[in-house]
C-alpha cells in the first residue's frame, strides 16, 4: 500500500508546491497593485492644490541654476507659470496628460499645442522630463509587486502595462505613514537605473475629511547626465481653493495676465 501511496503523496506535494509557487506572485501582484492604487488615491486626494516652488538644478562643475514656478493642479490637469528668471517669466505650460501639453510663450505671443510621444527629454534644463512631472496615476500604467517591507515602508517593483508608460520599470519605496512615494527609481528596458526621485519632508493638512499630504522637497537625479540634480523646494502650498475649471483652458493660458 505504502508503495502505491508514495507516488501519489509525492505528486500531491509537488502539485501543492506548484500551486504555492504560482500563487505567491499572484497574491503579491494583487497586494502590489492594490497598494499602487492606494498611492494614487493618496497622491491625488485634494480637490485642487496650488504651489510655489523654487527649483534649483545642480550640475557637475557648473553654478546652480534657479527657476521659480507657480503650479495649479486639479483633476489631473496642471498649469505651471514660470515666475523667474527673466527670460522665461510669463511662460506657461498647461498639462492635460503625459503626452498633451499647451505652452504659452510670451516672446512668441501664442499658444503652442505640443503632443509629446514617449519623449523623455529633460524639461527646461532640469532633471525632470514632462513625463515624470505628469505621472501621478501609477496604477494606470504599471502593475506592481511588493518586493520587500520594513516598519516604515514598502518597496514595490512596478512593470509597465501600458504603451504610454514612460519607463519600463519603476522601483517605488512607499511610506507606510503617508502611503505616498518616498523614492522612485526609473529604469529603462535594459535594466539601467536612469533617474532617482526622492520625496522628503511630507506635511499634511485636512482636506475636508481627507488627509492631503505633500512633500516639502522633491529631488530628481538624472544618472544619464552625470547625476544632474534638480530639487523642488516648496515655498507655498494651499489646497482646495476652489480653482475654476476655466483656469485650465487654452483661453486662460493666453489671456491670463
Amino acid at each position, binding site marked *: 500500500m505504502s508503495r502505491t501511496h508514495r507516488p501519489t503523496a509525492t505528486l500531491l506535494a509537488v502539485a501543492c508546491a506548484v500551486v504555492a509557487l504560482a500563487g505567491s506572485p499572484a497574491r503579491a501582484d494583487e497586494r502590489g497593485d492594490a497598494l499602487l492604487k492606494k498611492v494614487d488615491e493618496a497622491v491625488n486626494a485634494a480637490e485642487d492644490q496650488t504651489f510655489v516652488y523654487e527649483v534649483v538644478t545642480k*550640475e557637475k562643475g*557648473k553654478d546652480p541654476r534657479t527657476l521659480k514656478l507657480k503650479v495649479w493642479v486639479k483633476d489631473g490637469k496642471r498649469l505651471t507659470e514660470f515666475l523667474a528668471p527673466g*527670460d*522665461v517669466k510669463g*511662460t506657461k505650460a498647461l498639462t492635460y496628460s503625459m503626452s498633451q501639453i*499647451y*505652452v504659452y*510663450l*510670451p*516672446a*512668441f*505671443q*501664442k*499658444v*503652442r*499645442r*505640443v*503632443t*509629446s*510621444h*514617449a*519623449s523623455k*527629454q*529633460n*524639461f*527646461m*534644463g*532640469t532633471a525632470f*522630463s514632462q513625463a515624470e512631472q505628469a505621472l501621478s496615476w501609477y496604477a494606470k500604467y504599471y502593475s506592481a509587486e511588493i518586493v520587500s517591507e520594513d516598519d516604515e515602508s514598502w518597496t514595490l517593483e512596478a512593470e509597465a502595462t501600458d504603451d504610454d508608460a514612460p519607463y519600463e520599470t519603476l522601483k517605488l519605496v512607499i511610506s507606510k505613514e503617508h502611503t505616498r512615494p518616498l523614492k522612485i527609481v526609473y529604469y*529603462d*528596458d*535594459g535594466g*539601467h537605473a536612469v533617474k532617482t526621485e526622492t520625496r522628503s519632508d511630507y506635511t499634511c493638512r485636512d482636506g475636508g475629511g481627507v488627509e492631503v499630504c505633500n512633500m516639502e522637497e522633491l529631488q530628481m537625479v538624472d544618472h*544619464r*547626465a552625470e547625476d544632474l540634480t534638480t530639487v523642488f523646494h516648496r515655498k507655498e502650498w494651499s489646497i482646495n481653493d476652489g480653482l475654476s475649471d476655466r483656469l485650465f483652458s*487654452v*483661453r486662460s493660458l*493666453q*489671456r491670463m495676465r
Partner: protein
Amino acid sequence: MFETLARLMIRRGVAWAVVAATLVVAAASLYLARGVEHDDDLLAFLPEDNREIATFEAVNRRFGGLDMAIVGVEVDDAFDGEVLEGLRRATRDLAALPDLAHVLSLANVEDFRPDPVGGGIITGPLMSSIPRTEAEEAALRDKVMTRDHVVGNMVSEDGRGLQIFCTVGYEANPREAATAIKAVAREHLGDHATLHWGGNPFISSYIYDTTQEDMTRLTPWAVLAIVLIMVIAFRDLVGSCLALLSTGVGILVAIGAMALAGKPFNVVLGGMPVILFAVGSAYAIHVLTRYYIHVRRHPPGEAIVRTLTGIGPTVFAAGGTTMAGLLSFVMMDIEPIRTFGLFTALGIGATLVLSVTFVPAVVTLAGLRGRRPETSRFEVGLGRAVAGVRRHRVVVGVLLAVVAVAGGVFSGQVESRMDPQAFYSEGSPPDRADAFMREYFGGSQFMQLHVRGDMRDPHALREMERLADRIALLPEVTGVIHVGQVIALGNDAMGNERRVPDSRAKVALLFRFLSGQRSLRQLVSDERDEALVQIRMNTADAGESEAFLEEVEALVAAEAVEDYVVVDVDGPAAEAARRRKLDAVATRIRALARDRGVPLDEARVDELDEALGRLDAGADAGAIEDAVVRYLRGDEALVPLPEAKGDDDPAREVAREVVALGPQPGEDALQEAVDRAIGDDVDDVTVDDVAFSLETPLEEAWRQAGSNGKAAELISAIGMELPDGEAGERYRQAVAMALLDLRSDRVMLPAPEGAEDARHMEARVTGVPILHRGLSRSVTANQLRSLGFALTLVLLIMTALFRSLWSGLLATLPTALTLLVVYGTMGAFDVQLDIGTSMLASLIIGAGVDYAVHLMAAWRPPAAGSLEGTAACAAERTGGAIATNAFAVCAGFFVLTLGDAKPLQNVGGLTAAAMIAAALTTFLAIPALARKAAYTRTAEVGVAADEDAEQAEATLRTA
C-alpha cells in the same frame, strides 16, 4: 680610475661582494618591477605647453568632448525591424556608458512635426517604436527620409548605412571608451550588420593597440634574434650568457627605478628590451673579447687589469654616447617619451657599470679563459677593404660627399605631420571604416569653428550661420552643424519659421526650452557665450586636412566680424545694411542648395545676387485664408467657433474678413473684421478673444505667404531645377525661410572705429586637425631640440675621449652621414616625421657613434706604421664586433617590422637600415678622412705593441 677598479675586481672577496650586490639589486629590481603600472592613456602623448593643443583642450573641456567616435553600421536595409531593434538596444546601452558624454543615433534622435489634425506640433523620438511589418518599415523609411538633418548623418541616403555618434567625455580615456563602445555595438548589432569604427578615438586606439600587440608579440623574437646572432658571432656561450645576464639586470634596474619613481610603463617603453639587448650587451662583449686576448699572454688578474684600463674608457665613451642619445628625449615635451629616454638611459648606464664590475668579478671568480681569439676571414677581408678605402680615399670622400648632398636634399622633403592615415595600412579596419563613412556619409573627420560671442543675440547667431554657410560651400565640406540650426528648428516648432528668430527674447526662450537636449552641449556653452560649428570633411588625409584647415582659417580671417554694431536697415548705413543682408541670404541659399543636392552653378550665383535685389512677388491671399482657417479650427485656437453648416463656415468668414484687411491690420480693425464675420452668432467676449488670438497667426501667415511667393519667383528667375517631389518642396520652403531674413528691420555691420555700442565676437578654427597640427609642430621642435642636445653631448664626449675637437668631429661624422641617409630615405619615400620617427635621430646618434668610437680607439699604427696598415689593423680588430652589433641591432629592429603596426614598421625598418648604414659609413668615412696615426694615447688604451695588430699588418702585407 679603471686600473683602481680593475685591481678591486680581481680580489676574490670584492668580486664575491660585487656579484652578491648585483644579484641583490637584480632581485630587488625584479620585486619592484612587478609593481610598475601600465599607462594606456593616449592623451599622455599630447605635448605639454603647446598653445594649439591647450586651446583644443580648453574647448574640449568647455563643450564636454570633441572626440567623436562613430560606429558605422553597414546593412542591407537600415529600416529592417531587427536592425533597428539592435540599434535601439545599442544606443540605450551606449548612453549608459560612463565614458560617453552623449550618444546620438536614429534610435534616439528627437523629432517634431506639425499635427495635421489638431494643430500644433507632435514631438518625440523620430523612431517611436520598432517597425514589425514591412508596411511599418516602409512608413518609417518615408518619414525618416524627409528629415534632411537626419539623412546623411544618422542614416545614409540609400538606406544601407547607419551611424551612431558617441561623444567621448572630456576626462574619459578614449581607448577605454572605444573598447566599451565596440563591445556594446557588437553585442546588439554584430549579428545583423558589418560594423565600422570611425573617428579619432577608434583610429588612435587601433594604432596604439596594434603597436602594443606587435610589441608584446615581436619583442621576444627580436631579443631572440639578437641573442642568437651574438652567440653565433661570439662563439662563447658562457661569455654570451654573462653579457646577456648583465643586460637583463640592466633592464630590471631600469624598470625597478621606474617603479620607485612612480612612473608607469607605456607603449614606447616596450622597445626598451630590444634597445638594451641590442646596444647594452655590446659593452660586456667588448670587455670579454679584450680579456680573452690578454688572458692568452697574461695571468687572469693581470689580463683583467689590462682589459679595463685598455678598453674601459672606450666602452664608457660608447655607452656615454648611447646614454646621451637617449637622454636627449628629456628635451621633448611628451611625458611618455621623456620617461622612455630617461629610464632606458638608466638601463644602459646600469649595463655599462655591470660590464666593468659584475663581468670582471664573475671572470675573476670563474677563471674564464674563453675561446682562443682568432681573426676571422670576415675580419681579414674587412681589413683589406678598409685599407682599400684608405688607398682610394679621394674617391670614397667624393662618394660620401655626394651621398651627403643627396641625403641633405631629400631630408629637406621630410614633412613633419601627424597623419593617422599613415599609421594604418590599406584594408585595415580604420581604412575600411574611412571608406565606408566616406561612401555613405561623406567622411568621418570633423573640425570645429569655435565662436565666442553672445549667442542669445540673434545677430551673433546669424553671423555664425553666415560663416558656417561660407564654410559649407568649400568643396571638402560634406556637412555643417551649428546651434543656429537648432534654434531655427525650435523657432519652427514654436513659431512656424525655420530660421534664427529676430528677437533676443525668442532666442533666449528657445535656449531655455532646448536646454534639456544633451546634444546642444556639443554646440553651445551653458552660458551661451561660446559656440561650436561642427564641420565634417571628406578627407582623412593629413596633407589635405592641413591644406583645408589653412583654407578655412584664411576664410574665417577674411570674413569673420569681430566688433559689430546693429543698425536700422533704413538708417544712415542703409545701403551697407542692405548689401550685408543680401550677401547673407545669397550665401544661405547657396549653402542650402549644396546641402540638398540642388544644382547651382557659378553663372547662376551671379544671377542669384541680382535676382535677390529685385524680388517683388506678393503674398497669396488664398493661402493666408487657409492658414487662418486651419488655426481657428485647430486645438490651439483660443476659443472654439461654431461648426460650419454647409457653405456657411464662421472660420472661413473670419479668415476672409481679416485677410481682406491686408498685412499688419490695427487691433481695432481686426476686432471689427471679426465682429463683421461672426458678431451676430457669438458674444462680444468671444469676438474679442478671437481677434486677440488672431494677431500672431495672421502676421505669421502674411509673412510666410509673402516669402513663399518670393521664393517661387527667385527659383524661377534663376532657372533652378529643383528635385521632384517632397525634396524639391522642402528646398523651396527653406529658401522661403531664408528670404524672411530680408525683412529684418535691423542688421549687424562691422563696427566703425571707436563705436561705443560695439559688440564683440570672434571665431577660431579648432578640433582634431588643429591638434594634429600642434602635434606636428611639437614633433619638429622636439626633433630639433633632442637632435641638438644629442649631437652636442656626443661631440663633447668624443672631444674629451680623443682630446681633440677635430677628432671628435671625425668620430661624429659617420653618424651625421647616417642621419642624412636615413632622413633622405624618409624624404624620398614620403615617410613622415612623427612621434615615432622623431626618436630615430637620437637613437641612431647614441648607438651608431659607438662604431666610430671603437674603430678610432683601435686606430694605432702597426709596426710598419702606414695609415693603410693602421686602417686595416683597426678594422680587423674591431670589425667583427661592429658588424656583429650592427647585424644584431638590425635583426632586432627588423623583427619589429613584421607586425601590423605601421609606426613600428617605420621605426623598426629605418633603425635596422640605419645601423647597417652607420657601420658602413664608419668603415668608409674614418679611413678616408683619418689624418692621425693614433687617436688615443697608447697608455690609455693600454694594449701597447699589440700582437694582434702585428698580425693584421702581416695580413695586409700578404694581401
